[in-house]
């Protein structure tokens, strides 16, 4: 080869390599047709520090042992970016096959992403599998007349309290407050003892409005009515949010974000913390050598029964390939089985979503005999109100608008509750009605 032809040969070689790479990228995925099927799983619990991340690994290991013919490749994604990343992945043509998706993002995912019907993929196995799962949670995953999401890691808001601070403030830790009035009285005593009184975690890290809905529903209102109309500016809804604002303006609730409240509660500077049971393991770790952690039910408002709304995530399938869909169903079936839900509760601290598990010696009866912190929220599981989404493809944007432009200024900065919620409700109506 002479000197002048070398560059040509080198260029030809480079082009050949690129062409071969392109062929490899566009070749059909043989992993789905052979004995072993590989599926990707996007999860916001996977890879995180603490019980959620560790527990997810235990679940994945158990599935791998039970199904050696299916390889699950987990992909970690921040909770606030779960929908964003998947949309970008869909645009790039490589969506995950299965995703752990928060309920506040689900309506928008159903409207904009190629989410498959799990009910149809399951076929004959469907009825037997969902029998025993809390029915309200199964129906929350419905869209277009079919179930597209099965409940996976679900929690409800509960009242965490520091029993040591209760004693210091002259309160009885055996009798946690059960109503918003009692919460206010207890917070008053705690503040008088030199601590921060109470914090309602309405300003969720993932910008979900599940706790906002819990407060509004418990006060007799709704964010979205049965016809899908935005009604968050009704008198009852405003009154509910106003009660939480009163705690701040009265000096009983610190005007801080939820991360700051978690830190304060963990270091023993906050008496009561109303937040999702998903925080249980983190708060237990923080409380370990510092104070006695206890839980109570979500408080009721004005003699009405408490109506906590669940938070958390369901599993959705995005795989288009039939073999991958079958593998995805085996994965979803395992994760939402009695064995899967038992591990989710034991390892990750989420609520068991099959009613029989908590009392069955084979599953969680022993666990609940030793771990009493989940009993109050478990007792309220029957009162749970299904999560309601704003309608359509802009539901996530509407939820962020509610949280950032109404709840945050009202609760943290004393904005006029009636006027602010009315203005934001109008903007949300315009937003979801503009599609």
């Amino acid at each position: 080869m002479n000197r002048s032809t070398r560059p040509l040969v080198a260029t030809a070689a480079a082009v050949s390599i690129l062409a071969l790479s392109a062929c490899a990228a566009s070749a059909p995925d043989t992993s789905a047709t052979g004995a072993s099927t590989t599926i990707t799983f996007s999860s916001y619990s996977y890879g995180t520090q603490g019980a959620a991340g560790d527990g997810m690994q235990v679940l994945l290991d158990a599935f791998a042992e039970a199904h050696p013919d299916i390889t699950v490749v987990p992909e970690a994604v921040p909770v606030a970016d779960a929908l964003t990343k998947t949309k970008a992945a869909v645009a790039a043509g490589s969506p995950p096959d299965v995703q752990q998706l928060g309920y506040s993002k689900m309506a928008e995912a159903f409207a904009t992403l190629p989410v498959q019907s799990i009910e149809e993929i399951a076929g004959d196995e469907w009825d037997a599998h969902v029998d025993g799962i809390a029915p309200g949670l199964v129906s929350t995953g419905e869209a277009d007349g079919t179930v597209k999401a099965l409940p996976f890691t679900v929690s409800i808001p509960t009242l965490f309290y520091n029993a040591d601070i209760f004693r210091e403030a002259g309160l009885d830790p055996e009798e946690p407050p059960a109503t918003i009035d009692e919460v206010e009285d207890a917070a008053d005593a705690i503040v008088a003892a030199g601590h921060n009184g109470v914090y309602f975690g309405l300003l969720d890290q993932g910008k979900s409005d599940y706790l906002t809905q819990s407060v509004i529903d418990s006060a007799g209102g709704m964010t979205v009515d049965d016809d899908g109309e935005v009604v968050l500016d009704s008198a009852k809804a405003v009154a509910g949010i106003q009660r939480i604002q009163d705690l701040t303006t009265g000096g009983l609730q610190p005007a801080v974000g939820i991360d700051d409240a978690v830190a304060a509660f963990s270091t023993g500077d906050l008496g009561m913390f109303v937040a999702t049971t998903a925080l249980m393991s983190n708060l237990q770790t923080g409380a370990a050598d510092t104070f006695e952690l206890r839980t109570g039910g979500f408080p009721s408002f004005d003699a009405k029964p408490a109506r906590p709304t669940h938070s958390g995530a369901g599993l959705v399938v995005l795989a288009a390939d039939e073999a991958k869909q079958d593998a995805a169903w085996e994965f979803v079936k395992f994760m939402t089985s009695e064995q899967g839900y038992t591990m989710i509760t034991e390892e990750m601290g989420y609520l068991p979503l099959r009613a029989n598990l908590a009392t069955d010696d084979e599953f969680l009866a022993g666990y609940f005999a030793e771990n009493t912190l989940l009993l109050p929220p478990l007792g309220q599981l029957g009162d749970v109100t299904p999560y309601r989404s704003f309608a359509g493809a802009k539901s996530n944007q509407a939820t962020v608008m509610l949280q950032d432009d109404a709840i945050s200024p009202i609760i943290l900065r004393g904005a006029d509750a009636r006027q602010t919620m009315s203005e934001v409700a109008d903007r949300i109506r315009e937003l979801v009605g503009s599609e």
Partner: protein
Amino acid sequence: MTLTTVPPRAVREDAPRRVRASVRPWLYLSPVLVAIGVWIYAPALFTVALSVLDWNLTTPPTGFVGADNFARLFRSADFWQALAQTALYALALLPFSTVIPLGLAIMLWQRPGRASTVYRSLLFLPVMMAPVAVAVSWKFMLNPLVGLANEVVGWFGVPPVNWLGDPSTALVVIVAVTAAKVTAFNMLLFSAALSGLDRRTIEAARLEGATSWEITRFIVAPQLAGTTALLGTLSLVLAGQWVFTNVTVLTQGGPDGVTDNIYYRIYTLGFEFFETGTASAAAVVVLLVFAVAGIAWRLVRRSHVPR
């Protein structure tokens, strides 16, 4: 008069050589030109095209919408607030990009030695740390209930401050956290410029009895005018991008939008709400604002140049 004629055969022989000579520079430049075309101008044109389409990134564009995205943008109070905040960031960070690092660099330059090197290294340390890690550390320190910042101000009798949750302090905090890094980096650039100064004029001035301040004011500072102008311009253009990480980690544009800026707004519109058309329209507006500002600046400078 003597006429020199070139034989036709010679012209024909020179033509390919001239073509080769004129093509050769373009061949040398082509890798860079292709890269700039593919990675800068093509995306810019694509952004302009997206600004007149309705597209949510996951489904095919629903069609040409003309100026609707721009109209929606201009009706939005959030957009104007974000633009104003971007200008505010640029002005607030300007002294931390120019005067302050210049002063620090000159002070360290005038006092060479181990202490100066250690001090410079300490100042530069935040620049080398991962931006998100730095921002998360600040989040812990600024916790209004159990953070170190309130512990420190408490020693002076100052009541606890909600640094990131109070609209009156959040912007100041974002600017301060960003300024710590910008100042350190620009101080290093000024130090590099100082090392290239003509020391003969400084020595001559000293022999003539000039004071240290006079040397700094009339000899050192003028020689750094070019560097100062460059860093000032970069600051005005890039300030909104420099604060992006801190805004994302610490405040997400809140409280009440006071820490928002146009870049974070574009990110939110495009990748949180998937209003790709509106986000692209905002990006086009930013491009136009800088283009107009650039042209205006050139005209002003031209009018001040003596003919």
